[in-house]
């Protein structure tokens, strides 16, 4: 293991000073430490993009709870990511109003354009595609979020325009190798 890798490992298994400061701020509002579990997961995820096993153990230790119990919390929630995600997460609404307005076709278009299905990240690590419960913008269906931005009235042209900079590696030729 080289130095860079060691530093990387250390960063994963301990919380940074800033993370601890933010978590401890939340601890002031709860009667016992485990009460801040979701806040702590979100704080670490904001810093690191996702919650690795190492991060999870570090948070659990700080909150004086078992890693298993914390994982039970982490895996319950849709917006806590226990696998790495891309720079931006696409939260694609496939609930009923968007479905009536043709979101399945839009989803197929995105998958073809980016080369990913639900739960997958583009090869350039830019985007992760996830389904999301109704985004509460049903009057503007179909809709999705890309990062923090709500994108409404989706159609195929809009998908082309949004992801015009993305080039997907030809998976067909990869398959032949």
């Amino acid at each position: 293991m080289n130095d860079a890798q060691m530093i990387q490992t250390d960063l994963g298994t301990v919380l940074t000073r800033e993370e601890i400061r933010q978590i401890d701020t939340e601890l002031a509002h709860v009667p016992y430490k485990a009460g801040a579990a979701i806040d702590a997961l979100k704080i670490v995820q904001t810093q690191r993009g996702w919650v690795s096993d190492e991060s999870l153990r570090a948070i659990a230790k700080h909150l004086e709870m078992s890693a298993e119990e914390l994982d039970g919390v982490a895996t319950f929630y849709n917006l806590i990511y226990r696998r790495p995600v891309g720079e931006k997460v696409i939260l694609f609404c496939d609930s009923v109003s968007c479905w009536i307005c043709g979101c399945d076709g839009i989803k197929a278009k995105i998958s073809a354009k980016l080369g990913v299905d639900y739960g997958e990240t583009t090869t350039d690590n830019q985007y992760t595609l996830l389904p999301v419960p109704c985004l509460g913008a049903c009057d503007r269906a179909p809709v999705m979020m890309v990062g923090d931005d709500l994108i409404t009235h989706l159609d195929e042209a809009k998908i082309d325009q949004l992801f015009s900079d993305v080039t997907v590696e030809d998976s067909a030729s990869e398959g032949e190798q």
Partner: protein
Amino acid sequence: MEKVLTRNIGPEQTPTDLKAYEANGGYQGLRKALRELSPKDCQTVISDSNLRGRGGAGFPTGMKWSFVPMGDSCTPGHKYLVCNADEMEPGAFKDRLLMECDPHQLIEGMILAAYTIGADVSYVFIRGEYVVAIERLRGALAECYASGLLGENILGSGFSLEMHVHPSAGRYICGEETALINALEGKRANPRAKPPFPQVSGLWGRPTIVNNVETLCNIPHIIDRGADWYKTLGRGEDSGTKMFGVSGRVKNPGCWELPMGTPIREILEVYAGGMQDGLQLRGFLPGGGSTDFLVPEHLDLAMDYNVIGKAGSRMGTGTLIILDDQTCPVGMVLNLIRFFAHESCGFCTPCREGLPWTRQVLQDIEDGRGQLEDLETLAYQVKYIGAMGNTHCALAPGAMEPLQSALKYFRDDFDRHISGGCCPYESHKVHQHQHQQIGTGA
């Protein structure tokens, strides 16, 4: 019609800051309450107004508040007021508008609710995807703290309240009030057994009231202008105005504040502009994804809690989802059941196992693999999962509502899928079986 909840919301939907809110009568209800009304007076006014919860269940708000122990009957310690801003019901999009465009109206309603029940800490539990609403609420909270409307000794009254915006980590079940409380406590959001009810033992075991955004937005106006005024706003038996919405393939989908008791036909034809050209109305869910279908013969019913209830459905959130004649009813129900199966918290067996089973049966029918016995299986599911009391909370019974009414009104469509061995509808041809529920959760 007099606009109440949306009086600060113009067509541009620009947010209202503290100055603009106060210039249009904002915080008058709060000033009046702190000056001349006791908490008991406030609770009485809200009870007299017949305001019913706008989150879906329609429980009388004043009565809910009356269960909170007050004065000597309450042990010393915190009491909590929580705003349920976890709008995730499929097809519901009303609270987003209220929070994004007029955050102070919600905050004033929350301060008044907290004053009434004697709460000293309050939370806006809001879904994490509502980033604009979160930002604007936080901005509005900062304005309030800076102006003495929140914090210690509000407006010199001696009443103190702290308020926090708490973004959720995301799960539909958090909309159930006891699940929401577990989420606030940092736990998995499984609903709790009731009793004890949260009014007595909620957040951290202390008395807690959870109210929906729209419910709370009504409070300042009722306190300011009185119960009698509020009762005159409705056109039917229920009081006040309501945010009604329409989504689906209509000409002008949207959300409008209208009097309670507005006929469904008026909402659909006047405000939503009727069906898109070439489409006919087939049916609709009157109040979000967990309400029973109604059909065109119900169009002249008034949107009142009891009227919709007598017709076999629920007013729910008041946001209608429209089924047109070129969209497959089986596919629509499958979409809804898939949602509820995915969002089941997994705590009780009928919901955790029954909903995926139901989803699979519907998927088979939609894909043309269905058999006549499958309809008996679905009827069985409706009977056993749908019955209140067989499940831990109302999620699975709610999921059964669109299914049971689809079996009643669209039985022919189920039969045609089975006899024809395929879905008879041309639209939505990207097959749902490609659609897998994969998240990055482990």
